[in-house]
């Protein structure tokens, strides 16, 4: 009995060594896990910033702009965050997340913030390859280049689009199927209907023949657009991202309108009167009051008046 008891005895140094050893091993495992996580976040942050920089040369004029394929070394999630109330112009944030060793998605890296970019995509997109193209947005002067981004494995099928859109898609080389009936679309493709309803995205075009109207995605609110640049924006992005970027675009339009107002005063002093100050001032006030895409129609009406007045000038403002 006494012998058995002796066999179970541990000296204090053993107990101490076991406890300290366990603590050291635990700290080593914890430190290396944290280290891997930090490295991953660092890599994702750098990748996010690089993606933003890569997108800069893509923002170009339509004449030279073509669809571009962006390849990322590994399967990546892109988080598209838009803040319309941050700063004078609102902000565009991009962050990236890659998969961890256990094949689960890691936390996204720190977001890269841009004041002058407008990326239209779903809130979160994932894949290894992405399609991207840009289109200028004018109202009536150039406001910005809008960037459209979607994963290459996400297919779109346009059913009976207007001739203008069809030609543009063919010119840009965008890999979007164009059919005359929704039944001709691939099963996995997102169907975008221009004349019928019941598709993933239903578009109601204005009877004037111009590219303007509204768009309704399944289980989402209706959004409104004017011009093909905003039509693509509404198709490729979520309604939240679309409305947010639209607010940012209107903020930039109002600042540009004030800039042209200042330029007009400067040219007046040089003997080149444009007399557009009153129109620009009223246009700016309306832009400041912009609330949602529903206000676009009235603003585009005013923009068209300013464009016509400017066209008639011998000394053009823009």
């Amino acid at each position, binding site marked *: 009995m006494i012998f058995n008891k002796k066999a179970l005895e541990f*000296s*204090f*140094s053993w107990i*101490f*060594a076991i406890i*300290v050893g366990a603590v050291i091993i635990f700290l080593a495992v914890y430190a290396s896990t944290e280290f891997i996580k930090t490295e991953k976040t*660092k890599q994702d942050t*750098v990748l996010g*910033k*690089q993606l*933003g*920089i890569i997108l*800069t*040369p893509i*923002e*170009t*004029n339509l004449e030279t702009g073509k669809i571009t394929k962006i390849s990322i070394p590994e399967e990546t999630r892109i988080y598209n965050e838009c803040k319309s109330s941050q*700063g*004078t*112009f609102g902000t565009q944030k991009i962050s990236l997340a890659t998969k961890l060793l256990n094949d689960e998605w890691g936390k996204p890296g720190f977001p890269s913030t*841009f*004041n*002058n970019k407008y990326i239209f995509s779903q809130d979160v997109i994932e894949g290894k390859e992405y399609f991207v193209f840009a289109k200028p947005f004018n109202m009536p*002067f*150039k*406001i*910005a280049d809008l960037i459209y981004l979607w994963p290459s494995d996400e297919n779109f099928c346009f059913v009976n689009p207007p001739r203008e859109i069809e030609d543009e898609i063919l010119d840009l080389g965008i890999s979007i199927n164009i059919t005359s009936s929704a039944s001709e679309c691939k099963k996995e493709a997102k169907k975008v209907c221009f004349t019928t309803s019941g598709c993933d995205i239903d578009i109601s075009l204005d009877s004037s023949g111009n590219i303007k109207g509204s768009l309704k995605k399944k289980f989402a609110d209706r959004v409104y657009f004017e011009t093909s640049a905003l039509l693509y924006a509404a198709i490729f992005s979520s309604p939240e991202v679309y409305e947010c970027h639209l607010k940012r675009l209107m903020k*930039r339009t109002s*600042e*540009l309108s*004030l*800039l*042209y107002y*200042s*330029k007009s005063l*400067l*040219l007046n002093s*040089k*003997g*080149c009167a444009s007399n557009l100050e009153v129109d620009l001032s009223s246009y700016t006030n309306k832009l400041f009051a912009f609330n949602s895409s529903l206000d676009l129609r009235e603003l585009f009406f005013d923009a068209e008046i300013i464009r016509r007045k400017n066209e008639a000038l011998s*000394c*053009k*403002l*823009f």
Partner: protein
Amino acid sequence: MKHFHVSYFNNKKAQLKIQQMAFVLVALIIFLAIVALFYFSISLSNIRKTASSLQDEEALEAVRKLASTPEFVLTTHTCSNCIDLDKAFSLKERRSYDEFWNLDFLQIENVYSEEKNECDKANYPNCKTITLIKNEEIGSPKSAFVTICYWTREKGGYTKCELGRIYASGKNIDK
């Protein structure tokens, strides 16, 4: 008495061993802390280098792209990469654009201007530079040649174009 003496001796020996182990552990932890500190300082300097090169890359892209941005581009002609100097001069007074391009320094220079001074309301367009952004600490600016155009009342009034240079420097990462 003898028994007490042995036990006392053993106890002392064990205490010495524990002390020895504690010293080794403390030394080990100090050594690991020094190694970690060394590693993190190298790693931090690498992160700084990466961030700085990314900022430089961003500034370079900005310089390439700035001439065609709506705030600068000359829209009255078909020149999509010419800078409208009248617009750029008007932009100088607009403080809302200070943080817009994420730059610490942004300047447009009229390369062949005989004047040496900064543009203001009194001397424009007979001046050398328009400085739009100038923060206290700036890195080495990147530059690109551009065409700068402005309206002049000479010869009955026309848009005059000259050779210009645009300078930009990315945001300092220490801020």
